[in-house]
């Protein structure tokens, strides 16, 4: 059996430090909420539509609350009060707010107790829908079990949901277990979620609730035909993390990219905003039985892979504890990684193996997600395909859970039909042909692989000590991760963060915390 000889006490210390880092951030931010969290409450109360102007009703409600100067109370009690006072559903209330027929400021106030009770009732109905979706998934997984490991994960990204559906079905039939619909470029910076089925996007397809629904229905049909449940991935990242988490939960999306660190570093989203959003969105994901994927696989695209490999691992520890504190179980925490070693370096294959094996062993019950190196690919698609083939083997040999299938045309364009087919075929070959290879091999004690893994762990440990000492916000300012520096008050979206007032109430958060058993 391929195994590293890791020092358990070091691993334990990494966990302790990372938990402390995550706890401190959560404590510091516990008095904050954001506009998108309040919009999530509206969505879970059943507000899904858009105003005649095209603005989502969830935004209409929160903007209305802001205009009354009552954002600090949270949306829940005001919306619940309006529903009770007018005898209307939340969606109907929102429609009337949009047309200015209803003004929260001029409605009779039912009092704190009554409005909270009504809010709890509305939240309960929303959460019940999520439970139903979760149960549905469990039943489908039982009827159409998935046997292959790692799961083969491919993307579709045409911009047109109708084209995406055809390509997704083809990919599933070719052997893909997981289909990710890449989002349109720029969506992460929109402070609202677009509405309806969309047929034009740039570099990807907009994440909308209707698009989720259409794609899930198509994949359900395909799962039935194949006798194998095909999972759907989308992105609850960017400025609308929790809203998209809720929409995904309501439409049975199975995996969600969800990572504040990624947003801070690579999309320049304000750190406070996205860490507050992340906490709440992860509770929703936890409750929905969704597997999250974190974005550490992107770190080494900007810094030197060999010297900065430990930052991937350090960030995974932190991300793992942020996830845990939001109620996610190990089997829902899909930590991402890619070690991006230059293939021209001598023994680069061994270094890649060391990284992959280390991550596998540090998080034994997590569905870790392996991404083959992408940054060294060029327009030479044939050599890229050969490289991918060797990393398919790394993935299988090191027991990865989710395998992001490398595309030969990575450096050229979003995958063409045949690119996806060729890549899936190569990955499926390694998965079948080398199925038990991991059990047949053992590592040379003190050899290159083991030493490299130990070195990464040692350096991750010292980095975590450093970050724990100075706090995550300062570490981000100093550019510890991915070599990118982000100021606490910089980036996009800080204006959407607010301090909860004395009357703040969020029945969704209250119920989630209670049912997930978290503080």
């Amino acid at each position, binding site marked *: 059996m391929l195994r590293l000889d890791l020092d358990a006490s070091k691993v334990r210390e990494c966990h302790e430090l990372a938990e402390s880092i995550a706890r401190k951030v959560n404590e510091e931010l516990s008095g904050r909420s954001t506009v998108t969290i309040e919009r999530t409450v509206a969505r879970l109360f059943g507000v899904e539509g858009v105003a005649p102007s095209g603005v989502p009703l969830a935004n209409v409600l929160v903007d209305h609350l802001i205009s009354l100067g009552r954002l600090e109370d949270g949306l829940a009690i005001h919306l619940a009060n309006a529903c009770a006072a007018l005898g209307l559903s939340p969606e109907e209330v929102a429609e009337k707010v949009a047309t200015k027929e209803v003004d929260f400021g001029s409605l009779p106030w039912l009092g704190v107790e009554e409005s909270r009770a009504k809010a709890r009732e509305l939240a309960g109905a929303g959460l019940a829908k999520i439970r139903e979706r979760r149960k549905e998934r469990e039943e489908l997984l039982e009827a159409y079990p998935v046997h292959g490991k790692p799961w083969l994960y491919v993307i579709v990204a045409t911009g047109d949901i109708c084209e995406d559906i055809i390509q997704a079905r083809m990919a599933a039939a*070719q052997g893909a277990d997981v289909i990710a619909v890449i989002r349109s*470029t*720029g969506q992460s*910076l929109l402070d609202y979620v677009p509405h309806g089925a969309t047929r034009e996007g*740039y570099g990807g397809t907009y994440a909308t609730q209707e698009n989720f629904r259409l794609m899930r229905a198509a994949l359900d049909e395909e799962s039935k035909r194949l006798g194998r449940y095909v999972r759907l991935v989308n992105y609850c990242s960017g400025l609308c993390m929790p809203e998209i988490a809720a929409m995904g939960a309501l439409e049975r999306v199975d995996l969600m990219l969800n990572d504040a660190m990624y947003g801070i570093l690579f999309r*320049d989203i304000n750190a406070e905003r996205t860490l507050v959003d992340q906490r709440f969105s992860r509770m929703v994901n936890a409750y929905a039985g969704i597997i999250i994927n974190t974005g550490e696989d992107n770190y080494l*695209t900007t810094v030197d892979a060999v010297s900065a490999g430990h930052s991937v691992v350090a960030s995974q520890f932190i991300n793992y504890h942020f996830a845990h504190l939001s109620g996610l179980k190990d089997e829902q925490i899909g930590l991402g990684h890619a070690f991006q070693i230059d293939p021209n370096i001598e023994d680069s294959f061994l270094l890649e193996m060391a990284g992959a094996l280390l991550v596998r062993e540090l998080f034994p019950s997590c569905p870790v997600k392996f991404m083959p190196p992408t940054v*060294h690919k060029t327009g030479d698609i044939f050599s890229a395909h050969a490289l991918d083939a060797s990393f398919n083997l790394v993935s299988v040999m090191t027991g990865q859970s989710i395998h992001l299938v490398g595309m030969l045309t990575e450096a*050229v364009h979003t995958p063409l*039909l045949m690119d996806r087919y060729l890549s899936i075929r190569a990955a499926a070959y390694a998965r079948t042909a080398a199925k038990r290879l991991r059990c047949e091999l053992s590592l040379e004690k003190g050899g290159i692989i083991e030493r490299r893994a130990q070195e990464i762990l040692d350096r991750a440990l010292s980095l975590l000590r450093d970050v724990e000492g100075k706090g995550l916000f300062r570490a981000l300012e100093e550019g510890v991760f991915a070599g990118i520096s982000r100021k606490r008050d910089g980036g996009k979206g800080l204006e959407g963060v607010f301090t909860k007032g004395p009357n703040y109430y969020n029945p969704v958060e209250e119920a989630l915390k209670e049912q997930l058993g978290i503080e």
Partner: protein
Amino acid sequence: MKPEMNVEMRGENKHLILPYGDHHGDGVVQVSFTLPLPDGPLGDEAARQVMRQMSLADPQVAESVPLGENYTFYVGYGKLARPVDVTKLKVARPLWDKIDPVQVERLVNERLGRPIVVVGAATGSDAHTVGLDAILNYKGFAGDHGLEAYSCFKVVNMGSQVPNEELVARAKEEEADAILVSQVVTQGNVHLTNLTNLVEILEAEGWRDRVVLVAGGPRITHALALELGYDAGFGPMTRPQDVASYLAQEVLRRKSLY
């Protein structure tokens, strides 16, 4: 055929070029594509016809693979019948020499005596910074370090989704010698609108002639960049060294130092 005859034959018509498969002049071209047809004789013939329409003689389907949903993938071979006469081609490329990083450093340090200030951004809605980062960031691309690694460049990488107005404001603030614009997303030709808009803003502000304006991206060619009013364009296969060489020479040339 004896090797020397081969050489001789190449000598006669060396301006007439045919693809080389496994012997001179065979014209062999390898293609692969997908057709929205089910696998079968009709699909095979359609694939051969595709190759004929590409001016490939003797088209052969080496393999047809059904991809599902009635799509089929073809790998084919054919022979290009008519050679390319390279004496009739016009090629647009920047007039500069590729020089190594040490020379770039020496040139700028000795002749300009200060770093060249470069401001770069992926503009408009474009969130793709892979190309921009490969050229600007220390790490570079394919073993070739980016402009940040040179002491003779001061690099401001503004990242993605930067409005043109902000890019111009920053360039003025930094007194930039050069502006690098990256455009990856090209759906609906959004990149052309964006690139043209930047030139217009620079002209309106009276800054167009004060900076070396460079565009880059997978669909950018030098010819296209010139047409859009840029000084140079860099497409696929560009390495940081290409851009460094060009910027050093162009900035110095404008100051009559090169």
